[in-house]
Structure formats: structure tokens, C-alpha cells
């Protein structure tokens, strides 16, 4: 186990097993249809590649980037789309791929933006779901794991760009992100 991890939540084997199960479920649900996977950069990329390789249906890939945008001194924290999807999603079955959903605020913003482009269907598939932190109801149709309210890293999730390439998902020791 990496020295900065307090605990491993999911091992490499558990992650692959669960992704395979999810891919089977999605392939069954979208049998005979083409699915557009819109992945939110960057944390979800690891999840995307493993999921897409396990699907048995036709998929298209596209990506969204999000950045903070503070237009004024008294409105910190709002976000903007820094990298939009390249393809027209009108009439398509779209699945937003996320690494982790917690408050749901940003995902709600993304879903509002994408639904305005009139896809045929729009659902969310997340690697991790931190449901206890939810502030708004977001219909997450597919999830790999539900996790407790702890700071996790690995398999794409980072802290200050570190730990993304860990093959597992683990809880980061608090002294690491508290700077002690």
C-alpha cells in the first residue's frame, strides 16, 4: 500500500471486476444502439478507458473540460466549460462519465448544458458516488462504487495532480492534504 494512503478502499482486482459488471449492464441496456460517452476531464479518463474496452456495443467518445470562473470578487466558485464536446449530440444517446459525484452541483450544471442540445437520452455513469455529500438530486443511473465522505485518490483521482496512477482507490492520509 502506498505510504500516503490510510486505507485501500478498492483493489485493482475489485475495480476491474466491478467495471466489467457495469459494462455488461450498460451493453445490455443499450443493445442495438450507439452510445456517446462524454467524459469529464481528467479524473474520469482511467475509468473511461477500462469501461469502453469492456463494452460490447458501438460507442463514440468525446470530452468535456471544466474550470473555475470567478467573474467578480463576490462570486467565487462558479465554473465554466473550458473544453466543450466536439460533436453534435442532438438525437444521440449520451452518457456522462464522471470520476466522482459528490454535491452534484457541477454535474447538474453540465446536465443542464447538455440537455439543452436535445440528445435522445442523457444519463450519468460515475466511478465513485459520494451520495452523503449530495446537495441536489442527480439521477445517477450507473455507479461503480458508493463511498463514504473521505478524501480518496487513485485510479484517476488526484490530489494536486498526484496519485492518479495508483491502481487502487484509497483514502488519503489527512496530514497529506492538510499540509502537516
Amino acid at each position, binding site marked *: 500500500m502506498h505510504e500516503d494512503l490510510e486505507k485501500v478502499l478498492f483493489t485493482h482486482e475489485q475495480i476491474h471486476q466491478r467495471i466489467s459488471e457495469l459494462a455488461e449492464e450498460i451493453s445490455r441496456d443499450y443493445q442495438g444502439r450507439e452510445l456517446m460517452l462524454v467524459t*469529464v*476531464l*481528467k*479524473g*474520469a479518463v482511467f475509468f473511461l478507458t477500462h469501461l469502453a474496452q469492456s463494452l460490447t456495443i458501438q460507442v463514440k467518445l468525446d470530452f468535456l*473540460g*471544466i*474550470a*473555475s470562473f470567478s467573474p467578480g*470578487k*463576490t*462570486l*467565487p*466558485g*462558479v*465554473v465554466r466549460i*473550458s*473544453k466543450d464536446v466536439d460533436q453534435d449530440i442532438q438525437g444521440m444517446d449520451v452518457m456522462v462519465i464522471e*470520476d466522482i459525484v459528490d*454535491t452534484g*452541483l*457541477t454535474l*447538474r*450544471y453540465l446536465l*443542464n448544458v447538455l440537455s439543452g442540445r436535445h440528445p435522445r437520452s442523457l444519463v450519468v455513469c460515475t466511478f465513485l458516488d459520494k451520495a452523503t*455529500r*449530495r*446537495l*441536489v*438530486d442527480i439521477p445517477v443511473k450507473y455507479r461503480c462504487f458508493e463511498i463514504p465522505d473521505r478524501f480518496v485518490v487513485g485510479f484517476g483521482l488526484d490530489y*494536486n*495532480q498526484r496519485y492518479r496512477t495508483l491502481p487502487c482507490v484509497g483514502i488519503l492520509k489527512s496530514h497529506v492534504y492538510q*499540509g502537516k
Partner: protein
Amino acid sequence: MAIITISHQYGSRGESIAREVSHRLGFILVTPAKVEEIIRERYQLDYSLTGQTGETSHDSHTSKIFANLISAVLADMAVLNDLVTLECGGQFIFRSFPNALHIRVIAPRDIRVHNIMRDTGGAFDQALHAIEDEDRRHARFLRSSFRRLTETPERYDLLINSGTLEVDHCVELVLAAIRIKRLSEYGMVSSETTERAKLRNQIRLLRALTRLSIEKSGSLTQFAHPSELVFARLLDFYGIRWQYEPRTFPLRYDEEGNIAEAFSPDFYLPDSDLYVELTTMKQSLVTKKNRKVKRLRELYPDIKIRLLYQKDFEDLIFKYTARSPSEA
């Protein structure tokens, strides 16, 4: 963000030393005039840190509020910049700041008078009066703004008597102290820490503006705390409907059946049927809020409530700030 605060006796050449130090280090020099200019331009307020002899343009309560505003303005500048502050109360504002060096420049009275006579071309009596008036004004400023009656030497890292040293020698002493304290190295903080400090400063600014009743739209007056305003605006941006303190929940009754304790959560999000309570970093308040939320959940099990701690609040805001654009 490294801070050099320079406090000086009028006529002791403190301003010359401060200017040269800031020039040699490449730090931003913040003078009272600069702070007044910022307050005037940003908030359309006139407040004089220097003041005129004998004038008391504000009562002590207002002075205290302006001191908070000055503190917030300086703190806001300090987040991203290395500063040399001159006579702005920086030694009090940044007293607990780890990357600060506090300098006090003094000189014997006759030297100070001589310096003022040379600078102004005035007579001895005029210079002496000017020094006495300025000393009184300075004491008044400290007393009304920071509740400090006297300057105490232990407040400073370096006390310089410019009566026996040239300005250049004084500057060298300050620079040597900076090198010894390794201020330029330890002044660097991570981008996420910087952004979090910026948010806290913004909230401090909002708090100071609230007390000064600056915002004429009335939106600030609706909330008890500036962080609630920030949160409400965030919800507005994300299109989340909210209500502010729409319901009060009795938590305890006295022997006569009167409500002895009640709780009004800050926000209700009707679309999620969820109450949200914001809390600050003060541990005593966090403990109190935790107890109230726990009691509410016991008495009203059907009510959904989230307690958003300061760190949760900042995480919400900085989820996409710590990383570069196009990353998540």
C-alpha cells in the same frame, strides 16, 4: 506572500527606508495613501488613515470597522503579493502571520526635528509641533483602530535607531534580517492555499462592507454572515432554488412549555427537500452547531439536513480552482 511591516516615528526616515527596501526586494510598497486610494476606488468611501491634526472624522466604532476593512484590503493584497507596508497597522494585522517581519524605526527627537526642518524648510518650532501632532495622531489611530495604547518594542523583530545610521545602513539591516529569516523562501504557498486564503479574505471584505452598509441593493443585509451570501449566489449560478431560514425548529422547552432553544437552518433547497447549515471554522461554534443538528435529527427524523463545514464550503468552491483549466 512575504510581508515586511514598517512602523516609524515621524521624521525618523522610516518612509525612505521602506521605499528603498521595497525597491531592492521588488515588493509592493503599501502606504496609507495607497490603502485610502483602494478603499475610495473600490468602495466609494472616503477614509483617511493619516487624518488631519485634531480632526476626529469618525467615532471609535466606525474607526474599528474601517480598521477591519483596512485589514481585509491588506490581507487581500498579501495573498498574491509580497508587501512592504508602511504605517497601516500592519504589525497588528499580520501579527500572527508566519512569513512576516516587523520593523520599527525610531530616532532621537532632535534628529527627527532636524530631518523635518531639512525636508520642509521650516523653522525649529514648526518642525517640533509637526512631530508632536503626528505622534498624537499615530497614537489616536492605534487606539481607535486596534485598541493599542502604546507601541511596545517586543512587538517587533527589528528595532532600528536611524539617529546613528544612514538610510542605506538601515536598509542593509532590514535586508539582512530578511535573509536570516529566509522570508522570500518561506513566503511561497501552494496555489490551493492561496485560493483558499483569497476566499477567506473575500469573506472578510464582505463582512467589513456589511458593517459599513456599503451594498445599497440590500442583498447583503438579508444574510447574517457573508459566507451565506456567497453560498446563495453559488446556488443561483447553478440554478438551485433556495429559501433563507424559512423554518424554525423548536429543540427544547422549559417547564412552562415555552420554547427554550430553537434552530433555524440557514438554507432550504425545496427541489431536494434538504436543509443546509453553514458553519465557520471556530471550534466553539462548530460544536454548538453539531449539537443542534444532532438534536434536530433526533426530534425530526423526517427532516433532511446537511451541515456544511468551512472546509466543505471551500472544497465546493475550489474543486476546479486548484487544477489548471480543462482539468477536473
